[in-house]
């Protein structure tokens, strides 16, 4: 039962749940397609990108960093860093995908987007028994919307003057800002790492070629997060050892 992705009933439920997010994805990906056209991507490349990687942030990173220099490595590294959160998304789907074969697990995971994941988790919380077909149906809708939107935007073939006139050169920055707001957890956890990341990125921007300054900033921020966690851990252990009264916060 749960070993199949092709239960049409469940797929239909999943697809319906993702219709409204799908509309938003359609609009959003239209902009991405227009930017891809600006970046001189070929149509086959664009479609392959949409189908090969599910995750608008990777496309946004690639477009943002495209032709900063001939060096493509920073795009791979930055794409990796921004996509890491999908490891946690995948981990949270362990239960839903449990009965699938390895290849079906891999396929279902490949297709999963933020929207289809969120709808599946919500369905699981409501119904306590959501199926992989639900996730798959929703994912199909999102990926279709994403690809169609991209292709539509690509064929709109706006030139640079149009892009600026419509404010579209701001689009990717806007997307990243929204993502940042969605990713923010708390001052305690995020303020220091993000401050360090921003500082190091700004300081290294001229010193490092291409997009490497972003990687430097990200690494510095991650190290700061690790250092803060280490510090908090030591404080907690010291307080526990001293039998301290009062709340002890663990990271």
């Amino acid at each position, binding site marked *: 039962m749960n070993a199949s992705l092709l239960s049409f009933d469940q797929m239909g439920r999943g697809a319906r749940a993702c219709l409204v997010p799908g509309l938003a994805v359609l609009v959003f990906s239209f902009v991405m397609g227009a930017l891809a056209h600006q970046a001189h991507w070929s149509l086959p490349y664009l479609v392959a990108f949409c189908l090969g990687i599910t995750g608008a942030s990777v496309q946004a990173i690639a477009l943002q960093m495209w032709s900063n220099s001939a060096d493509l490595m920073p795009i791979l590294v930055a794409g990796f860093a921004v*996509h890491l959160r999908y490891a946690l998304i995948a981990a949270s789907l362990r239960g839903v995908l449990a009965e699938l074969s390895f290849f079906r697990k891999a396929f279902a995971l490949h297709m999963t987007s933020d929207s289809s994941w969120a709808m599946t988790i919500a369905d699981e919380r409501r119904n306590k028994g959501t199926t992989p077909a639900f996730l798959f149906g929703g994912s199909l809708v999102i990926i279709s919307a994403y690809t169609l939107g991209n292709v539509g935007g690509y064929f709109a073939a706006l030139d640079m003057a149009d892009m600026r006139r419509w404010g579209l050169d*701001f689009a990717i920055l806007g997307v990243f800002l929204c993502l940042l707001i969605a990713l923010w957890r708390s001052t305690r956890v995020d303020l220091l790492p993000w401050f360090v990341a921003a500082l190091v*990125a700004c300081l290294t921007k001229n010193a490092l070629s291409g997009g490497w300054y972003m990687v430097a900033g990200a690494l510095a921020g991650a190290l700061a997060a690790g250092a803060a966690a280490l510090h908090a851990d030591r404080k907690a252990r010291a307080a526990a050892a001293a039998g301290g009264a009062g709340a002890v916060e663990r990271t």
Partner: protein
Amino acid sequence: MTNGEWLLLASLAAMALFIRLGGLYAGRYLERHAIGQAMFNAIPGCLLVALVVPDLLSRGVTGWIAAAITAVLMLVTRNMTVSMMGGVAAMALLRVAGIAA
């Protein structure tokens, strides 16, 4: 598209799948190490900050206003498409109004 660019695409696709399968099978182990987990969780946000802040600083006032509008919309609506389009529209309007940059 050059061979290098196709190789990049293939690498990104492989990387994405690797991350997802890794998370599915190894997620449990990460949860046991608080410091590793803290670093892991911090990376996506830190990368985006490292990208956004220098970019914003290099834009003029129009960029900052559009960014502020995007941020407010996102905080209120929690909808990425609406917020992004709001920022884009703000940028377009500011330029139409003749405000520089």
